[in-house]
């Protein structure tokens, strides 16, 4: 595991602080959906870098490779034919993959210690050797990202090429993108770049252009520029994603109440016995089933 341990900001299912102490800038992948041509070089670059096999697909009436990401296809261009009420028609293309949330729902929900880690630079990574295959991360994620393999019973997703980023390379998808709609760097710089692109889009008539960096999950290391920023659902994105109430309720109040109740219950029985002891019944009413001479 080496030096990367020193960069772990958070781990799943731990009761003690994470070991990371390095200070590194938060990275981000910037996706400009307004210049994506849907060429799918990113889909293939990711599979080739990670040595993932191609999926078997059939034509289902769309240019989209598959309905969702899979354990072998970690990023997917989504093609949405979107018609507005005034008859305007847009073919909206968006690269779909893990958003690398600052407050990851998957990490919060995961019960297996160390199965999900978050690095100081914002990358959220699955450590499949610690994964137990329970699928709770699927419940925790508001973006439908983690995908379970039927063969290995573990979940898989985009790693933001943590192995490449660790040695100073950009992620494979970004390297492959021919239109430069994908860029990589420190999040501060990229958010500024995104804002200026949004200003450019607005000046060009896309009055609702916006940067999608949802605060409900603490912001994400995948920042997306949307030409129709008032309607993320048209791109297949949730409008205001956050960690679901059920998961939060389970992890916080329920966990504390439950743990106290269990301990209270066990201690309570001990105290009850000290105080009231067993039931005293007349001697001959004690249950001493008589043994037959067998």
């Amino acid at each position, binding site marked *: 595991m080496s030096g990367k341990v020193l960069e772990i900001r958070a781990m799943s299912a731990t009761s003690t602080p994470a070991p990371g102490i390095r200070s590194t800038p938060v990275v981000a992948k910037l996706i400009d959906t307004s210049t994506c041509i849907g060429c799918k070089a990113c889909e293939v670059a990711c599979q080739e870098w990670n040595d993932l096999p191609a999926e078997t697909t059939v034509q289902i009436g769309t240019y989209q490779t598959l309905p969702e990401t899979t354990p072998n296809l970690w990023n997917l261009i989504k093609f949405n034919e979107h018609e507005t009420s005034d008859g305007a028609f847009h073919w909206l293309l968006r690269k779909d993959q893990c958003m690398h949330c600052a407050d990851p729902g998957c990490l919060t929900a995961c019960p297996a210690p160390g199965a999900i880690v978050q690095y100081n630079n914002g990358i959220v990574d699955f450590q499949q050797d610690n994964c137990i295959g329970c699928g709770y991360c*699927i419940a925790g994620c508001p973006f439908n990202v983690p995908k379970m393999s039927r063969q290995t019973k573990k979940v898989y997703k985009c790693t933001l090429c943590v192995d490449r980023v660790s040695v100073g390379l950009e992620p494979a998808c970004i390297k492959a993108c021919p239109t430069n709609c994908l860029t990589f760097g420190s999040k501060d710089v990229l958010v500024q770049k995104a804002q200026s692109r949004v200003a450019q889009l607005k000046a060009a008539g896309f009055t609702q252009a916006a940067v999608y960096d949802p605060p409900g999950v603490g912001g994400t290391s995948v920042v997306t520029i949307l030409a129709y920023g008032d309607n993320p659902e048209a791109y297949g994105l949730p409008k205001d994603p956050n960690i679901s109430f059920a998961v939060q309720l389970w992890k916080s109040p329920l*966990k504390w109440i439950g743990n106290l109740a269990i301990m209270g219950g066990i201690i309570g029985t001990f105290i009850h016995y000290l105080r009231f002891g067993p*039931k005293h019944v007349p001697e001959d009413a*004690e249950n001493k089933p008589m043994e037959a001479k067998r």
Partner: protein
Amino acid sequence: MATMMKPVKVAYGNVLRYTFSERLVHWAAALSYIYLLLSGLAFWTPWMWWVAMMLGGGPVCRAVHPWMGLIFTLAVVLMYRMWLPDMRITKTDLEWKKTIRAYVRNEEEEMHPVQAERGFARFAPVDRFNLGQKYLFWLMFWGGITLLVTGLILWFSDYLPWSLRFLQLISVFLHPVAFLLTLGGFIIHVYMGTAVVRGGFSSVIRGEVSERWARYHHRLWYERITGAIAKK
């Protein structure tokens, strides 16, 4: 039917309280529940993760836990079929309920031995199972159903389409809630059956209880059994 078994007066002053199949089903439920409890505790909190390590590791526990849940469900279903008639809550139970505080405080010893012999005039008489035991039965029954349904959804969460995600979220919350409630019942049940009510534990191991024990703790049931026997 009802008092299920054929009334059996075993020789030498004992009666058969639990048949072999009843005991088998009870222990199937108990042991499977214990496994589910231990593995479940490991999933429930990182403080208890070490339990999973003792049971074969995280992935093994996650794989075995739902199957064990099916075994538990089966045991609960069988217990339901065996004991449903005995578990209906009656007017006498509701009478008994008024004295529950005294019962919990083990205040039967204040009874006069003669009254005790006649079976606590102060307390309403108890049939095969007292109200507490009936409450446990229903808690485990409904808890078991909730655990089964939410458990199935959690088991196959990767097959669930995104449109049915709300089911997954509900299950993530309800499954531990049901677990906590059944655990509460389990703690009380084990405590009472082993420490508080002497003879309770062996009754569900060996099946036999003395007639006097039966008369003392479950008078109505005893009379029914012996009356039936006497009629023979």
